[in-house]
């Protein structure tokens, strides 16, 4: 159920993120969500891709420092309280959210300490978890 996230080490300099995105475009890889955060000197850009494995190998072939991690993706109805509901379930179970960001539409990706347990928790709630297949499918626009 978990979705692959591709992270890459980037210097905080103009053009470095663009170089990565241009490579994805050239390889026909669709970016369905991303987050870029920094420490001042360098940053980590994280991507949810329709073809994560290909995306990782593209980055590796470019010589980038890149890696793959698992995140949970949940589709949230677009009204008040929905984000709070998801985070509440995870917090009540004592699981730490390390970071999170939203994707296309109102899909959010979150990286948590215990992904198996968190997934199990959310699955038993009225929360729509999104699969890798849905992320990869171009039809998914909901």
């Amino acid at each position, binding site marked *: 159920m978990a979705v692959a996230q591709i992270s*890459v080490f980037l210097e905080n300099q103009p053009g470095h993120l663009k170089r990565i995105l241009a490579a994805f475009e050239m390889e026909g890889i669709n970016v369905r969500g991303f987050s870029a955060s920094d420490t001042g000197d360098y940053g980590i850009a994280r991507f949810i891709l329709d073809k994560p494995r290909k995306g990782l190998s593209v980055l590796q072939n470019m010589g980038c420092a890149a*890696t793959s*991690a698992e995140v949970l993706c949940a589709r949230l109805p677009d009204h008040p309280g929905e984000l709070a509901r998801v985070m509440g379930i995870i917090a009540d179970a004592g699981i730490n959210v*390390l970071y999170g960001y939203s994707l296309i539409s109102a899909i959010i990706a979150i990286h948590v300490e215990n992904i198996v347990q968190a997934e199990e928790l959310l699955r038993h709630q009225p929360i729509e978890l999104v699969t890798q297949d849905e992320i990869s499918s171009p039809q998914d626009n909901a």
Partner: protein
Amino acid sequence: MSDFSSSASAFYQPEIETLPREAIRALQLERLKKQIAWAYARVPWYREAFLKRKVKPEDIRSLEDTRLLPFTDKSVLRDTYPFGLVAVPLEEIVRLHASSGTTGKPITVAYNQHDLQIWSECVARIAVMAGVTRADRVQMAFGYNLFTGGFGLHYGCERLGCLIVPAGAGNTERHLMMIQDYQTTALISTPSYAMHLCEAGEASGLDWKASSLRIGLFGGEPCTPGLRHELEQRMHIRCTDNYGLTEVMGPGVSGECLCSRDEQHINEDHFFWEIVHPETGEPVSENEEGELVLTPLSKEAFPVLRYRTRDLTRVTTEPCACGRTHARMRKVRARTDDMLIIRGVNVFPRQVEDALAGIEGVTTHYRIALDNETGLDRMTVMVELTPSAFSDSFEEMDHFRQHVAARLKQALQVSAVVRLVEPGSIARAFGKTRHVEDQRNKA
């Protein structure tokens, strides 16, 4: 002139190369006095410099008295460009060479027939030290031009009696062909060009293990231990380094023998060496590191007294297993020009490189930026992350950064800010790479 009779001999001129130390010192003093008198009598610049220091050639009665003499540095050669230090009539000059000046005019030096004879003799000696014999076929990959490397090593090896293939710089395919067709056994090149040949040969299916090549005589740029090891493993050759500089002659000042790796015997009958403190110019004790100062003892056309090489080394006069009695200088890996003073601590860029080589997860490519915006010197070292060391977690990355900083501090005795940069993002260059950007007092 050559006493080289047996191809198995380990010396080119055994009687000189194994002279007892007292006899070497006596010979040096005798030649030094002559050289000083020669420069004083024939070169106005030296006469003036002696007068300024109130010293006369006859004041030099021992080798220690040399310290009364003025130094010569690169600026003297620049100011007297092109023929100001020439001590013989120009008609007597048979060769000019010049060092690659990165800015402005090059440094130009001149030789007469006598000087070229001595030069070949010095080079023949260091070639034999490196294991070359008259039976060797030597392939030249240095350019034949103003640079002293090409012609210097060419005539030295020819003097020794080698078959020399004057292929010159560039044209890798032809070099590979000649190694195979002429069955050459020794290669003269820069270590980085040797690596290029190695890779090109491998790509074209050449089996280096089966090839005739057995010795690499490298110069023109420092050969790091890592590069040397790789060349030896992949090309199945023995790599040796030799040392020299245009200002005092060219290659042939000193060379590595087969017994003491990383140390080079100085041709002491032709070069008087001193090691001085780079800032004060005062002599340091034996085996202590300092700046190498050279006085050629047998030059006629272009005498140079107490030349400040800017190269840092230490010299030992301990006996060597090879039987040579001439002093050995440790291979030069740093120049006084490279030395940085950071919050009062001397730091050499190569220390950064050495420290990085011992840390998992970073490459040995780096850049140093210095500033003192806050009033205190601050050193920032940009370090390339290797892909395998990357983690998706900022916390882990920061731990890693701190780990690198701690290791650098341990090696340099001064703290540095470490900035992690993307793999491959630091410009690669061979030889004289600019590693340091000093922005102090510029803000």
